[in-house]
């Protein structure tokens, strides 16, 4: 095995192109577990932690560009005002030690159906910037995941950044697990309200082969929420929204929970988050 430590993005892309057997590593919170338990033996560990650009974020026009190497801790501390949904999800990741090391890019690279960062990115309509020596492309987040731990990332590509519009309305995230810390979600759900354009964004986690949106639920809520009057949320609207979110999931039975429990939990999470977000909007 080789250990390669490029100091520039161009060098990293060149190595990635040269060595299809390279495994990128940033915070190591997934990769090192696989190494320690003899599950992966890549030809190259491609260390991305010396590339300064990857750990920066900045506004570019109306969008935020968050480098793939920005840690959860920094998302909470530095971006909590602009991306409250993502920051809420980041707070539920692992423990302080894990949040200090784990990165948004690593979350996407692992592409776990249970990745905590994915639902809020789906709800916010983020895009993923992928780069290779061939060039750079932007992939809408709802087209990024292709299966459990699989994505459209090509063998010669690296995840450069996430592009996302700062919240223009209330955002919420909620997650079910056996305790508050160190938990892989049994189910999770994220919601974003966009009162300006009267749209609703959703993201389902840990209840389908990939993180996914609940498109019908989004359209239903956008059409039913009393945007003009900002009246209280009708219970039947919240209930139906929960049903539509649960219907959009395709959960399985596994060690963390049954498919039936996951569907039930999602319906509850969806109703709650819509209730909280609508209350936030109405003041």
């Amino acid at each position: 095995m080789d250990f390669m430590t490029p100091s520039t993005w161009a060098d990293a892309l060149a190595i990635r192109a040269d060595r299809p057997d390279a495994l990128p590593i940033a915070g190591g919170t997934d990769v090192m577990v696989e190494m320690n338990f003899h599950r992966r033996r890549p030809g190259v560990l491609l260390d991305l932690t010396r590339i300064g650009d990857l750990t920066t974020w900045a506004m570019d026009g109306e969008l935020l560009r968050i480098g793939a190497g920005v840690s959860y801790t920094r998302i909470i501390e530095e971006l909590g005002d602009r991306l409250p949904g993502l920051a809420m999800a980041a707070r539920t990741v692992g423990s302080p030690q894990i949040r200090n090391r784990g990165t948004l890019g690593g979350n996407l690279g692992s592409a776990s159906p249970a990745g905590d960062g994915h639902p809020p990115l789906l709800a916010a309509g983020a895009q993923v910037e992928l780069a290779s020596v061939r060039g750079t492309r932007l992939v809408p987040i709802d087209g990024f995941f292709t299966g459990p731990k699989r994505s459209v990332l090509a063998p010669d590509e690296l995840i450069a950044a996430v592009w996302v519009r700062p919240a223009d309305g209330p955002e919420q995230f909620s997650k079910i697990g056996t305790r508050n810390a160190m938990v892989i979600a049994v189910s999770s759900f994220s919601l974003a309200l966009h009162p300006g354009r009267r749209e609703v964004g959703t993201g389902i986690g840990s209840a389908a082969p990939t993180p996914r949106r609940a498109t019908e639920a989004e359209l239903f809520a956008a059409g039913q929420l009393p945007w003009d009057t900002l009246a209280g949320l009708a219970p039947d609207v919240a209930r139906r929204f929960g049903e539509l979110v649960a219907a959009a999931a395709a959960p399985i039975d596994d060690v963390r929970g049954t498919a039936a429990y996951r569907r039930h939990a999602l319906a509850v999470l969806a109703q709650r988050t819509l209730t909280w977000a609508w209350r936030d909007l109405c003041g």
Partner: protein
Amino acid sequence: MRVTCTVNGTTRTADDVWEGESLLYVLRERLGLPGSKNACEQGECGSCTVYLDGTAVCACLVAAGQAAGRDVRTVEGLAPEGELDPVQQAFLQTGAVQCGFCTPGLIVSVHDLLARVPHPSDPEIREALAGNLCRCTGYEKIMDAVRLAAGSPTEAGTR
């Protein structure tokens, strides 16, 4: 490969490091610093918590090469030789050490917490220590230790 980094203020070099090896293995097996404990090797238990460039991390999840040129501070380096950091002293005074296996990681996590939040609330303490498991379940004594360390008059001068 050869890995050189600063450990507890001293430049240290480890040879014949395997490329997939963790910082924890380098510390314990190559540099003779067994204070950081090896239990879960997956970032669940926190018993290998160390500072890497001033940030609390699980040493088992840092690739050895990622620590090259960086500043590592382990539980052995919190106080000068023969002395105890106020956090260590507080753990002793409150009986927060039972079997002792989780203690080094907890000491570093508490040290980190008090550096960031000198007077944490109980929920803040619990949140900060959520990634450190004690299987003797001495958590209440550990809470006592953190409260004591946070109120210790010697704390301000040494941290």
